[in-house]
């Protein structure tokens, strides 16, 4: 059976109209929706995952990705191309998620962990669940770096570009995140 990730990869290969990022960007600037679809195929899954870890449930994560593409569409003319499109999308989705989280707090509708996610945890490996829970308890900036580096596999240079911080800071925050997570994991085990 083909998983969602594999399916996205296959779709991206099949529908990759624009071979280079420059061509893809040029098509986006022409408002060619096929270019935006290609971007969605290539980055949508990661964006959803990042959004999920910030917002805590899939529905909000999808809303955040939708909002991300709309913001990207509106701002494409001003994109200088100093970073990759993927990095830029990641930066947008993080900002969108922060805005959504802030709005939820203001509205008093913060759901924390959605019920569907709590149920799903029951079947997960203990350490994974514990790590996921611990991740929600550490500082947001540490969580972001851990998420982007360890979970999503981005490089420190990319994370630095996304979060607009020096690369050394990204490394330092990752260390702090892992140190804090290790402490929380040990607490749970004891």
């Amino acid at each position, binding site marked *: 059976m083909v998983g*969602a990730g594999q399916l996205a990869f296959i779709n991206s290969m099949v529908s990759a109209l624009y071979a280079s990022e420059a061509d893809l960007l040029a098509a986006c600037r022409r408002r060619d929706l096929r270019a935006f679809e290609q971007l969605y195929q290539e980055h949508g899954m990661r964006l959803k995952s990042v959004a999920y870890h910030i917002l805590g449930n899939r529905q909000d994560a999808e809303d955040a990705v939708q909002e991300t593409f709309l913001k990207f569409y509106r701002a494409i003319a001003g994109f200088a191309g100093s970073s990759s499109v993927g990095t830029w999308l990641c930066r947008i989705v993080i900002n969108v998620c922060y805005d959504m989280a802030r709005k939820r707090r203001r509205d008093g509708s913060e759901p924390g962990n959605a019920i569907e996610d709590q149920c799903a945890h029951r079947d997960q490996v203990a350490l994974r669940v514990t790590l996921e829970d611990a991740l929600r308890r550490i500082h947001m900036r540490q969580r972001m770096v851990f998420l982007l580096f*360890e979970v999503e596999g981005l490089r420190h240079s990319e994370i630095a570009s996304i979060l607009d911080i020096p690369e050394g800071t990204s490394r330092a925050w990752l260390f702090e995140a892992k140190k804090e997570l*290790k402490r929380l994991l040990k607490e749970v085990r004891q």
Partner: protein
Amino acid sequence: MIFQCSDLERALRSPELMPDARAHAEHCEHCREELRLWNEMSRIAPQLHQEWESPSLWPRIRADLEAAAPARMPVPFWQWCIATAALVAVAFALTLPWNSRTPQSREFLTERALHDVQQAEAAYVRSIEKLAALAAPRLEQSPTPLAAAYREKLVVLDSAIGDLKANVAGNEYNVYLQNQLASLYREKQKTLQEWLENAKSN
């Protein structure tokens, strides 16, 4: 370097100290557990990546993008007026020469008519050649500027007639070209007659 438990945190920050940390951990249960937990986090973390299918997400995004497409600004009335005036002027400029040429150029001679034209032309050419033969002796010998001007004009006319005949040969049925050729012959005839009249009066 003698690695101690207190060096572990520094080793976790600096990958170059890790071999020493691992060597130390072989004999230190506390550091072994710390290292195991540290590495376990990196091993487990990729599993936190969330993947799920969202078949309705791209259609939703697409609808958003289509709705966000920049709306075309309404064109002010004065711009419409200028555009219309420009269009009329261009159309007028284009149709003027076209009207004077196209209908003729699109009229094609029939075989019979072509034969008549060719016969008339041949007779006309012969007449002009006789006229030229009459004019030639004095025209070629006269050193006056007037004679030089007539000679020059006839050379130009002969050259134009030659070019046009070449065109007519490729498109014999074209009335426009035939008319042009006839008018050149007329001009040559008129030029020769003028010269002969001038020569007679002098």
